[in-house]
Structures are given as structure tokens and as C-alpha cells.
């Protein structure tokens, strides 16, 4: 018993040594690869930061817009974004619009890739550093139905998720950011394009 046990321990030690050697070899390879790719990685890192930056800008814009728009939120949620090319479940957060349960609103023209009825565009190019990046903003419903069947075309809890993605038009790389948006429910009388960022003059862009 003891011998076998000892023998088994030896085998385990050998395995550990082999694993360690493998890890070291792999680490060496990675280090060599990293060395060769240093410049390229730095450039990629810069682009990555810029994409995140861009996505955050888009997210901020989307939060401002969706919290102030007078287009009904359920109209946005009732627009089939999967058909518009946005990442669809299970590969993304958006859902197609099923026949049942019925959508709570009507699709918004121009959303998400064109010009909305209020002349807003949720697909915009911006310049970050020397790059022209494109962000897209959309909104999807959270899982707010108590039953297992969710109706993503109908908001029940005045809470939706603003989604923003930014794409490098050259390399096609993307970064995405999202945030929960709490809806107040009342149509807004406010306009952000004035002194103090609104008629209350609070000087707060959040």
C-alpha cells in the first residue's frame, strides 16, 4: 500500500514537472512572440482604448437621448433590431420581435441606422485621435417579466439598457458598452441644447 502510494506520488511529481516544463516552454514562446509583436501590440492597444473611448461617448449620447426623447420607449423596443443587423440573441443582447406576445409599440422609422423622426441619428462617425470611428446606439429591454417568457418589445419596469458599440471603419474592430437606464415615465418637456443643459439650468450633462 505504502509502496504503491509512494509510486503514485512519484508519478504525480513527474507529471507536475512535465506540466511545468510545458508551461515554461509556452511562456518562452509567448515572450518571444510578445517581443516580436511589441510595436503592433502597442498600436492595437491604442486602437482598443480609442474604441472604448468612442463607445463610451456613444453610450453617454444614447443615455442622454433615450432619457429625453419623446418617442415612446416601447416604440424603440418594438423595432426589430436583429433584422437591422445588430447582434442578436444568443450572440448579442437584442431579440427579434415575435408575433406573440404582442409588441407594445410600433417600430420607429429610421431606427437604428437612419434618421429618426426627430432628426436624430444614432449611427454617427466621430473622430478620436486621428481615426474616424463609428458608434451606434440602441436600446433593449431587460428581463422584466416575472414569467419565464419575456417580451422584449414591452417595458414593464421603466428600466431598459442602453447599448453602444463602436467600430473602426478600417479594421472592423468593435468595442461595446452598455448601461441601465431608469425611465421616469413622463414625456420630457426639456431640451438639452440650451444653457445649463436643460431648462432647469443645472449645468449637469449626466
Amino acid at each position: 500500500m505504502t509502496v504503491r502510494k509512494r509510486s503514485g506520488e512519484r508519478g504525480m511529481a513527474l507529471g507536475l514537472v512535465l506540466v511545468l516544463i510545458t508551461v515554461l516552454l509556452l511562456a518562452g514562446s509567448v515572450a518571444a512572440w510578445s517581443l516580436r509583436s511589441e510595436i503592433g501590440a502597442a498600436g492595437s492597444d491604442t486602437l482598443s482604448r480609442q474604441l472604448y473611448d468612442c463607445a463610451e461617448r456613444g453610450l453617454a449620447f444614447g443615455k442622454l437621448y433615450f432619457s429625453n426623447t419623446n418617442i415612446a420607449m416601447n416604440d424603440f423596443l418594438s423595432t426589430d433590431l436583429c433584422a437591422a443587423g445588430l447582434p442578436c440573441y444568443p450572440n448579442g443582447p437584442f431579440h427579434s420581435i415575435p408575433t406573440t406576445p404582442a409588441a407594445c409599440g410600433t417600430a420607429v422609422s429610421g431606427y437604428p441606422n437612419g434618421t429618426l423622426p426627430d432628426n436624430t441619428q444614432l449611427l454617427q462617425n466621430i473622430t478620436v485621435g486621428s481615426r474616424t470611428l463609428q458608434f451606434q446606439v440602441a436600446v433593449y429591454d431587460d428581463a422584466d417579466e416575472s414569467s419565464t417568457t419575456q417580451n422584449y418589445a414591452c417595458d414593464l419596469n421603466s428600466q431598459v439598457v442602453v447599448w453602444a458599440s463602436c467600430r473602426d471603419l478600417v479594421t472592423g474592430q468593435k468595442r461595446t458598452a452598455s448601461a441601465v437606464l431608469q425611465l421616469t415615465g413622463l414625456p420630457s418637456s426639456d431640451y438639452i441644447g440650451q444653457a445649463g443643459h436643460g431648462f432647469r439650468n443645472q449645468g449637469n450633462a449626466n
Partner: protein
Amino acid sequence: MRTIRISILASAAILVLGGRRAHADTDFQPGSLVIPMDSCGQLAQTPAYCNWNAGSCTCPSRPSCAFVGSGYPTGGSVKLPFGLVYLLATNGIPVNVALSSTKVTLGDPDFSIAQPNSSSIPATVLTWSSSASNPLDGGTGSYQPHDSYIKSGTTSMSYGGGSFVVDAAYAQDALRVLSWFNRLDNTFNGVVIHMSYNVFTAPIGAVLQSRPRPVGIMSNALDDFFGETGIPNVLDQNAPCTSNSQCAGNPGSTVSGTCNTQAGYCRVDYWVQLSYTNGSSPASYSFGRTGSMPQPAGVCSATSCTQLVWDTGGGNIDRLLDVIWMDQLGDSGDWVNWAAKPYGLDDFLANGGRLFGIGSVGDQIENGTGSRRYMTAGSTYAPQDNGSSSDHGPFCPTTFTSSTTTATADASASPFPASNAVLQTGGIVYDINGGGGGVTGLHVTGSKSGENPSWDTNAESLIDGLNMGTLADNPVIGGKRSGWVIYEGAVNSWHGNASHKDAGLRIMYNTLLDFNGEPGGTVASRFTTTELSRSSLTPSPSNASSYYGGTFTWAVPANPARSGNNYWTPPIGAYPATTGHFREYTSATTGFGGNCSSGNPCSWDAAVKIAAQSSRKIGVVDLSSGAIKDWQDSSLSSDPAITWMRAQLGGQLGGIDYSTAAVIQSKQKPVNLGNSQKRPTLAYVGARDGLLHALCVTPSTQSLTSAVNGTTVYAANTCYGRARGEEVWALLPRVAHRMMPTTNPSLQDWSSVNVGGSMRVADINLTPTAAATWRTVLFFTTRSASASVRDSLSAIDISDPDPLNIGATTPTSLKLLWENDGTGSNITSGANCPHFTGGCAMGASAGATVAQVGSSFYLVATSATAAAAAGTGINTYLFDASNGKLIGFDQMLYSSATRGGLSAQPTVAPINSIVTAAIGNDVPPPPTLLNPTQGGTDDTMALVPDPSGLVRRFTMPAGNPSSIAATTNGLASITTIFSTHSKDQAYSNSTGSHTYNPTSTPLCPSVGGVSNTACEPIGASAAIIKDSATSPSFFAVVATGGADWASSDPINRANTQFHIHYLDPSGLGPTTTDGGATWTATATNGLRNVVALPSAITTPTNKVMSLRVYGQPAVSGNDLFVQATTLAQGSEVQLVQPILYPDYPSGCTGSACTKYWGRGIRVANADQAGASIDNTVFVVTGSGLSSVLVSTTGAVGSQAVTAYFMGSNRIYSVSSPLSGAANSTYSIQALSTSNFTVRAWLGLN
């Protein structure tokens, strides 16, 4: 100094006096120095001035001087102030020359100072005491104020004779220089100096900026002049010496390089000797060159120069001189000739060279090859010798033996005004000097056809018919009016013989003037047009990278129809008083400049896109009915304001000053009127043309059928037929209509016309007690600063801003809903002033703010007190936004020590270390509305900061505005939650006890025997920080220093920095019973309650000043931005005539940097216990008067922030990470992304 903005009090004073406001219109703050140059202020002795008559000078009795009281100094002099000014200019103190260009008689005042309040005199008298302790430098010997020297009860003090004015920002420096000098030399001890107690407006014809280059003279026949002014005694504080070798002289000067060894400083050069040799032919004419002169190739040999060529490249003779004094022109052997230089005289004059001469003006100055000749008539007129007695001097004040000619303002034919525009640079002397000599036989036309300069018809002697005239003009040479040629007679006197002629005053002025202009021509690069902004940028409602801003142009175009307008002189009677720009920017950092038609540096500029006048759609609010008429309506043809506009406006855009635009898009609800849900996005902005402009920002994507007539179809992708950047319509509001000088004859100044408040827009339910009627409503105020026309608040329906509504019989939108000036007069509907017996008249306003309670709306507005008020203060108004009914009012006067329910509040401000003055009547910031409860919807409070340093909370009424009883004041519930002037202000709330202004924070200085002064005004609205992670969750942020009168001079004020305060809007206010602990970092999750702004910023002029904040703090994400500036103390480069300021900050070239000085700062690390200011991150921000626009942000830890703000000639941006702006002159130092200002992120809950 502030230009364009005219103080109410100053305006009132002018009107009271029956005078007319002149046009240079520079505002001077309390504490400014005035060196009187008239017989009342400076010549309080008898005899003191003389009267030339038939060659003799007699001295009449001194005139009666209304303000001169017992003890007034009797040692004044009209000579020595010139030397004193020379001393100040030598030592870096700018001096303004106040001279009215519109006064009609010699005795008219140039300006006046009114008393700031009924208990004060307008100005005090400063006299030198050699034994007094000096609060400025701690030495012995000081200037001391003597109020008693001004007669008690004096309500206004007038100044004539071209007084010198030192702005308050430089007053202490000036007195410091004078104190230094007086201890060394008593030359100027007796010069009378006044210090204003009130803001005043003076017409500034020139600013003496720096020590002049010496006058080139063949032989110094001006010793009398120089000696009598004390100029030879002037010392340079920056040039200590013990021997002559340490004093570098100016080239060629026979007096250079001398050290006043007793005083220990170098004397200054004031003239350079020139020696001319007269050859036998023109080509050989030359003048001698001294060894220290430059030796430009082709111009000068080692010993002589053959040209007097003015160039801008340096190296030629103009580097030495800009004035040549042709003293002995009576001798035909002394000629100046540009023969060796083709078009030499043209060149000299056209580039700013100036010639001065006295005596006979025959063939003295000849042309160059191909050039015009100059006064080459060939005949001479012997000047009359006014006597051979001893020194008559040029300081014999003129009292003409015949009656004074009375002229009309702006006369283009004789008789001219006493200080006609053509005498702008030299008319100063005529009030105080005179007699003798004189230009006779003026050659207004030449005898040599084709070669003589064409003289403007205004060029002739000052006083016709008397042999005491002056000739001053800009001769037309080469097709444009160029240079200055001034021959003087009135100030020339012969005493003894032809070699003793005095005439120096004008020389001095013109030498000091750093003027290189050609009226109507191209100005020198250093005087290029400056665009300024006192407005904030507006973000696009639908585009993350676009933003909008308006500016006004501080470049005063010469009026080609009127001779003598210098380009720095505001136009006489011009409308608009200033023009401006409104632009869309789409890139991060760009300049103001350019027309942007090509998309770079901005997308478009409305100033160049406005249609020709015939195609403009302008509405005029009828003065009686309130209907909006088309300005081409024939019924308006008899309206003087409209006919004037039709004649003047053209395609101009008035200067946008103080008005922050609203950029309003369409929405799907709640408004549904006509095309409201498909309307294009328009920008609404007010301007100094008195108009509210609607400009196309984003066209509607759909074609629109006009709801006005049902037939007109506007094409898709237009703004009612207009393209991006074009003006869709403009509107002359009734209040602006009323204040048009052509409508109100009491007003002379078009610059008082300004729709200058922030545009405020909301969807308003006009019928809150019935079925809802939603309209998009634009609220705006006026900022007129006019004493005779009240400002007002107007509401315009812009639901469907179709220009066809203008002039329509039954407009569907775009109509005046209501207007209220607080008095009940000129009110469209329902307003009155029931709550305040003193009246509710509205003063100049920065705008209003909307509050929503359910589906009803209130409007809260602030204004300065109107002219009729008992003093300076703040008015707060509460209106029913649906109908304009005034339902609440509060007036708080700054003269009350118990204002705001507090005690021992300061009632005067320390305008310098010597005297105090009443707290200024600045336009207060608009209120901030909020509900400080998370999830709260109805606005419950209005926070109202004010220039006296308080922050008050007005509790908003609940429910519908119509439910407020007629006898109820809707603004009756007031809590003062903060005073910047009291330390250790304790309060408690649910989180415990706290203290605002802990011991280490400001205690305003004791000045002039007043121990409690107001030194920290709040000039900008409060911003709101929301942070669900903190308690309380809402903070109000206010920043101080935003008033021009707030001194930032650190002398004796080392502990009185300006600050950013974080306040609990729900706080109980300072009490005396709660001595709670300082609001600690622990209590507020890292927030500190006060952050001190730097107080030791060194400006390009080596002045050390405090940073101050004029614009509302901007909150975005976790960041808070303020734009700070050293503005007040840097006012030499602020809004007053910046084009006159010759000093570039080091490293600036061309228009690459601004002459304004300020810093954009980022408050870093304020969420840590050791909150600090990162002083290393700065850019020159220009006027620094606006808020920061923070365009985007992100989540905690990965912020993406871009802040935009406006400076002069520049838009700046700071991006995160702070990697720099496009302005290559100043870089932004990178900060780590871990620097967060405040924990402000709340998302949207």
C-alpha cells in the same frame, strides 16, 4: 475696464446730467484713478490759467467748480500730469485718455462719475502724505483718500480737458509706482488724483501703453515743454543704477545714458537728436546718424541716412522713431526729403509715420520719386508772433476772445465739434492750452496739380476765423486715407523768438500711441480683429460632436464716410453697435476665424450666410398690440426704429454677447401643432442688433406644408426653405424695439440694445387647468443696461417656427405669448406687481429658468435692480410660465447688512487696499431649479446665487401657478444657505452637523477702516451634482470671483482666494447654534466642501493675480469643470480695446494666441482627502467668461471627457486623456485617467 456693457448707474448719471454718452464707451470699475485735466479738478488755484489775447497772456478768475469742497488741493498743475503719465507709462501702467468725440463746446465734460448711492460721493481725492504708512508696500509715504475734499451732497462729478484714467485693475500698481517715485523726487507730489467710488463710462480716445520711443528732433527746442511736465525727472523703476554706464540710452539721444545717482535709477530718454544736412539736390538730402542708431542697409551709412522709410520688418529708421518733430521748418535749409526712396513719403505716412511741425509750412517736406508731395504750395504764410515776452508756454489754457463756436455732433462741415473726430488723437489739449502761433494759410489744396494730397473736407482749423487753428487730418494718398499729419497752432506759442516754440503735448500723445493704423485700411497684424465671447457653447441635441457658439467682434470698423475714425474707436451712431458670428463647430478644437463655408475650421458661420436684406424675414413686435409684423410692412414705414434698421442692417449679424443659444429639435410629443413634430432644428440666439435670430441647424428630412397658409411647401432637407447656417427669421422684440435710439430719443447708444440673456426653452402647457395645450416656448430676457428703458422677459411660441407666421393675420405659431417687465406696463397679459410696494421693475437680466410641477410650469428669473431701485441688488421673479403673470417677487439690496436674514453681511467691496465701494450692480446669474430628492419629479427649489456672495434657496410653490392667491407672494419662502463672507457657517441635516467655510477659508480683508468687506461675489449659476453614493445625494456647486469689481490683487489679501464651494441645497443655512464639525471627507464620501482656486497666477505682464470664475461649473460624469481667469486684474487685455494692447505674451505670434489671459483649469482629485488644484494643466482661455461645455462622458474609471470652452479668437477643447488641443502654442499636460474631480456619476436615476 469693460467695454460695450454700460452700467446702469453710469447711464443714469449721464442722463441726469443731460449729457450724451460718447462712443468710446469704456467702463471703469470703482477704484479707478482719474487725473483731472480741467480747471476744476486739477487747477484749484488762482491764477492758474491764462487767456491769450493779442499776444499777451492774462489770467482770469478760476471758474466755479461745483464739487470742490473745503481743503481741496491748491497745488494742482496742468503741466505735471503729462510727466506723471510719462512716469506711469514708463513703468508699465496703461493710461487711458478720456476725450469725448461728440461734445459740442470746449467746456463740455468728457465724462462724469455719478455717486454710487445716496450716501456716497462719486469719487474721493487722493493726496500724497510723506509721513503716512503705505498699505501698498509697507513703506513710509502714501496716498490717502479725502472724501471731505469733495463737497458734501455731490451727486456727480464731471471731467473735461482730456483727463487721464487708470483702470481699477492698475490703480494699486499705479499708486505703488507713484509712491516709489515720490519718495525719490517730489516733482509729482502735488498732482491731484481722484479715485472713483462708482463704475463710470468714459470715452477713451487712446491708451498710453508704454514708454514712447523718443521724439526725433533736430535740436531740442522743446525743453520748455519737457521741463514743465517733469519728464526729464522721470525714472525707470526697472533700471537701478549707480553710474551713467549702467543706463543704456536710446540711440541718438543726447540725454541718454544718464543715471540719477541720488535716486539710484536711470532717467528715461525722451528725445533723439537728428541732424539734417541740406544738399544741393534732392538726392543728397540726408540726416545725420549717430553711432548707436541701427544701420539698415541701403538706408544709412555710418554717419548719415538718406531715407525716412517706415517699414514693418524692422531695421529701418522706424525702429528708432515714429515721430519727427520738424521744429525749424521756418528755415528752408531744414527739409526732409524722401527723394532717395520712390514713393518715400507715401510709404512713411501710409505705414503710420507721423510728421509734426509748426510754423510756416511751405516747401519744407518734399516728395520722393513718384510720390505725392506734402504741402508744397510754394507760398508761405508767416505765422503771427504772439509776442516776444518770456515763456508763455503751451499750458496757457485757451479762452477764446470771441464766443465759442457751437457745433453739432458729428458735423461734417464747419462748425465742427470741439473735439472733432479728426482730432481724435490730439483734441485733448484744447481745453487746457491755447494761445499763440497758429497755423495760418493752410494749404488745403495744392498748387501742383496731381501731386498734392487730397485733404478731407474736414481738415481745417479747429476754430474758424481765429488765427489759432489746428490742422489735423489723414490725407488721401494713393487712394486711401493714410497716416496722420497734424499741424498745430493752438498749442504752439512763440516766446521770444522763432527758436523758442512749444508744442509738445500732441507730440507726446502721438508718440505714446502705439497706433499703426490707416482709417478704413488694413490694420497692422498686432491690431487684428479680436473675437470675444461672453456666452457659453451649446451642445447639439442630436449629434455628439457638434456644438454651437456666438461671438462678438471687437473690431470697430472705420466709417469711410467720416474722416478720422480710428479703427479702435467705436463707430459713431452705427447699428449694430458691433457685429458677430454664430457658428457650428464639429471638430474638437478650432479657431473662431474663418467663414467656415468650406467646412474648416467650423461647419458654418451664420454671419456670412445671412441673406441680403431684401430676402431677410424679420418680424417686429408692435409696440402697442404685440402682434408680430413683417418689417417690410408699410405700416412700419413711419416707425423710426424700423426705417433706421431698413437703412442700416443689410445682411449683418449683430454681435452675440452674453446670449447663450438654444438649439431646439423636433419631438414627437407633447407638442403637436402644425409641423412641430417634423420641424427642423433651429438655433435661437439674441444679439446686439436687438434681434432674436433663428438659424438653421438641422433641416427637416421631410417636406413641410406650411400650417400658416396650407399651401406653401418647403422642400425636404431645408429649414423652411433655408439651408444650414442660414437665418430662417429674426425678431425684434418689443423691449428691443423700445430701446432703439430712434424710438427712444433719450438713448444715443446702440450698444445698449442687446437681447443678451440665455435662451430658455421648454414644452409648456399653456392651459394647466383645462385640457392641455402644449407649446414649445422660448423665453428670453434683455440686457440693455439702459436707465430709461426697462428690460423685460418675453415668451415666444416656437412650436412650429415657420417664418410665414411673421406678418400673418392669424399666425399658428411664432407669436408673442406674453411679455413682462415687472411693472405692469407694456404687458400683454395678466401681469402686475402686487407684492412689492417699491415696484418690480426689471433690470438687466441674464435669463430665466423653468420649473416643472406636474404638468404646469413656473418661470424663475433674476435681474439686477433697475435704475429706480434704492441701490444695487438682485431682483428675483416668479412667473406663471403659461401666461406671464407675476406671482412672486423678491428684491434684496446689497446695502443691507442683514440681507438674506443673516447678520453682519458686508455692504461694501474692497476695490483695492485703500478704499471700498458699494457692491456692484452686476447682472446676477439665472437660478437653478431642482428637486433634491432622488426620483423626485416636481421641482421644489430655486437656488439663487448673487454677486453679494449669498446663495439663497427659494421654495417653489406646489401645484398649479394659478392656485397662488393674488395676495400671496410666491417667493416668500427663502432660506439663505450660504454666504461666502462668513466663515465657520454651521448647519446640520440628516447626516449630522457640518460647517461651511471652515476657519481656513475666506475672511475678506479690512480696508480703509471697514472691517467687513465683500470680496467673493458669485457671478455664475449653481451647478448640480448628483451622486447616489453620497449623502446628501445632491450638491450645488458655486464658484466665486465672477464680478468685475472683485479685486484679485493679492496685496494684503493673501488669504482671500476665490473658491469653489460644494453646498447642500437642502441645508438649513448658516446658523449660530450649530457649531458642528467641518464637513469632512468621511462624511461626504470623499467630497470636500470648498476648493480654493490659485491666487498666484503670473500673467504675461508679470502681474500676480487670483483665478476667478465667471461661468457656471459644468458637471459630466465624474468630472466638474470650471473655466477660470485672472480677468479683472488682467483687464488691460480684456474687453476694452484689446487691439490697442501691444504686448504679446511671450511665445505668441500673429493671432496664434490671445491677448487675453486666463487659465482653463481642471480641478483634480477632489474626491480624495487632499483635494487640490492641478495648476499645471492650463491653456490661455481668453475672456474666460463662459461656462465649459462637457460634451461626453463615461462611467467611473473609464471616463471619456471632452470639455469645450471659448476664449478670444479660439475655441478650446480638453479631451480625456488630456492630450492637448489644436492650438499649438499651449499644450495641455496629460493627466492620469485616475484623476476624477468629484463622484458625480449617478446615471439617470
